[in-house]
C-alpha cells in the first residue's frame, strides 16, 4: 500500500499470514474509498468473526463494529436502517457470511438493504485452523475432511442473486482493478451489493492441499478464473472447478 493511503489506517502492522490475500483486499477497499472521496465520518464497517473480519477492524480508521460470528449483516441492518446516511460496508469471510450467517445475508439481499457486503472467500476456515467451509471445493482436504470434502460448495453469486441481490460481482484479489471498481459501483448503487473477493489462504488451504508455493497458489487461482462468456464455451466437465468472475445482477 502506498504511503498516500496510510491516513486510512489505524494500525500500521498486520496479523495476516505471509501470502494471505486479505491484505490485497484491504488495499482494494481503501483505494476504492479514497478514489470516491467518501465522507469518512459517516462511513461504517461491520465485520463478523474470522481472519477476514479483521480486515476493517482494527485496520481501517473509521467507525468499525466487530461483531459476533455470522451476525455482521444483522448488526449492519440495524445501523443502516436507523441511520441511512451511514455508508455501510460489511467485510467478512465466506464461513462467517454464508454458513453461520447465511440467513442474515439472504434476508438483507431480499430487503435490498443499501449496504455493500464484501465477502473474502478463501474456501476454508482460516482462523480456527483449516476446517471445511460451505465454500470448500469437493475433494479439498481440510482439518474436518481429512479424506476430502464430500459436499459441493455454494455458488455465492447465484445464492445472492437468487435472494434478490441487485449488484453482485466476483473477482480474485489477483485482479485488484476490477475488484476496486466493483466495490465503488456497489457503494454508489445505493442498493444491496455483494462482492465476492476470491482470496487464497496459503497457511490453511494451500498447506493442507499440497500447494506449498504461494505464487503457485495464486497462479492456479488466476488460471481457474474465467468470465461468463468463456464458461459458455466450455463443456460441463471442463467448467468443473472453474471460478466464473465478472459482474452480475441488474445495476
Amino acid at each position, binding site marked *: 500500500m502506498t504511503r498516500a493511503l496510510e491516513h486510512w489506517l489505524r494500525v500500521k502492522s498486520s496479523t495476516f499470514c505471509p501470502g494471505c490475500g486479505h491484505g490485497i483486499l484491504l488495499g482494494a477497499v481503501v483505494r476504492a474509498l479514497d478514489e470516491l472521496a467518501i465522507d469518512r465520518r*459517516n462511513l461504517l464497517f461491520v465485520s463478523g468473526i474470522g481472519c477476514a473480519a479483521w480486515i476493517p477492524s482494527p485496520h481501517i480508521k473509521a467507525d468499525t463494529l466487530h461483531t459476533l460470528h455470522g451476525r455482521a449483516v444483522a448488526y449492519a441492518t440495524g445501523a443502516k436502517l436507523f441511520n441511512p446516511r451511514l455508508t455501510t460496508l460489511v467485510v467478512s469471510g465466506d464461513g462467517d457470511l454464508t454458513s453461520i450467517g447465511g440467513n442474515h445475508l439472504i434476508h438483507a439481499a431480499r430487503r435490498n438493504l443499501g449496504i455493500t457486503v464484501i465477502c473474502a472467500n478463501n474456501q476454508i476456515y482460516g482462523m480456527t485452523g483449516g476446517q471445511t467451509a460451505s465454500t470448500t471445493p469437493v475433494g479439498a482436504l481440510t482439518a474436518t475432511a481429512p479424506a476430502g470434502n464430500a459436499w459441493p460448495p455454494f455458488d455465492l453469486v447465484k445464492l445472492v442473486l437468487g435472494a434478490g441481490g441487485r449488484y453482485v460481482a466476483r473477482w480474485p484479489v489477483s485482479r485488484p482493478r476490477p475488484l476496486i471498481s466493483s466495490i465503488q459501483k456497489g457503494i454508489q448503487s445505493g442498493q444491496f451489493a455483494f462482492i465476492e473477493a476470491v482470496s487464497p489462504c496459503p497457511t490453511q488451504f494451500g498447506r493442507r492441499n499440497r500447494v506449498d508455493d504461494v505464487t503457485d497458489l495464486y497462479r492456479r487461482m488466476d488460471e481457474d478464473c474465467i468470465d461468463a462468456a468463456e464458461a459458455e464455451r466450455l463443456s460441463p466437465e471442463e467448467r468443473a472447478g472453474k471460478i466464473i468472475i465478472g459482474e452480475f445482477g441488474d445495476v
Partner: protein
Amino acid sequence: MANEPARILMGNQACAEGALAAGCSFYAGYPITPSSEIMETLADRLPREGKVFVQMEDEIGSICAVIGASWAGAKAMTATAGPGLSLMMEGLGYAAFTETPCVIVDVQRAGPATGQATRIGSGDILQVRFGMHGDVCPIALSPGSVQEMYDLTIRAFNLAERYRVPVFLMADEGVGHLRESVFLHKNFTIENRVRDTSRPPFGSDDPAGVPPMPVFGDGADLMITGSTHDERGFRKVDDPEPHRRLVERINRKILDHASDIVEVDERFMDDAEVAVVAYGFTGRSALAAVKALRRDGKRVGLVRLKTLWPFPQAEMVRLDGRVRRVVVPEMNRGQVAMLVRAEMNADVVSLSQTDGEVIEPDAIAAKVREVLP
C-alpha cells in the same frame, strides 16, 4: 398522574406506549406468543413517528439489529418469549460486554422448549442472569400490573442509557395480556447516554464507572468488538489485566449501584412475622392472599420485587432480621426462592407451581398458614 385520563389497555400495549414515551426509536423483532402485541403496536406507531421498525428473520438477527441500531444512536428494543430469548443469548452477552444500551422485553410463557406457548410461566429469571457465557450483570425489572408495564418500560430505557447495559423487562403472559386501567402519564425524566468523544468509550478511571458512548457518525472512529478490549476498543486477547479490568468493571458498574437500581414494594410489613416475597403476576395473587390473611388477624406482609437483577440482596438481608419465615410463590421450580434463601437465616419456603396456570391467592394463603408461627 391523577390528572391523566385512565385508559384500559392490554399490558403488552402499555409496554409499547411506555417505549414510545421513553423515546424508543428502533424496534427489531420476530413474532412470538405471548409478546406479539408489543411488536404489532410498534409496527404501527414507530413509522408514523418517523422512527424505525423492522421484522427480522429470527431472534438472533433481532438482537443484533438492536445492538447495531443502538450504536447508530437509537434507543433500541426488542420483545420476545422464552424460545426467542434462548436464541438471543449470544447477542445479549455481546451487548453486555460492549456496553450497549438496549431493552429486551421477555413476556414469559410456560417452558422449557416450546412448552405451552399461550400459558403463563416465570422460568426465565435465572436465564437472563446466567444464560450468557462468562460473567455479565444485566438489569432485570419485573412488572406486576399494566401500569407497571408502562412505568417499568420507561425505567428500563433510562437504566439502559444510564448504565450502558441491556435491561430486561421480565413480564409474563399474565401481565402481558391483562387488560386494566393505566395512566399514560408524563411524570418522568428521559435519560440519554453521554456522547462525549473526548474520553475513551470503553474505560473509566472509576473501576465501577460508566464511560461515555459516542455513536456512529460522531467522528469518534469507534472500534467496537466483542473480544476483550482496552479503553479505546483495541482487541486485547492475550493480556490478563485488560480482561480482568473489563470483566470486573462491567459487573461492578451494576452491583456497586444496586441501591440506585433495586426497587421493592412492601405492603403490611410493619409488624409481619411472615413475609411473602413475590414478583410479576404472582405478586397480585400474593397481595390478595396477604389481605385475606390480615382479615383473619395474621401478621403477614408482602415484599414484591420490582427488580430481579441485580438481585435485591441488601433488602433480603434486612428482611431476615424482621420476619421468622418467608414464603416465595413462583411459576417455576423455585428460582427466586433459591436466591432469597442464600441471603437468609429465616426459613424460606418455596411454593412452586409449574402447570402453566396462575398461582391462586388461596394456594399462597394456605402455604402461609402452614408456616405461621
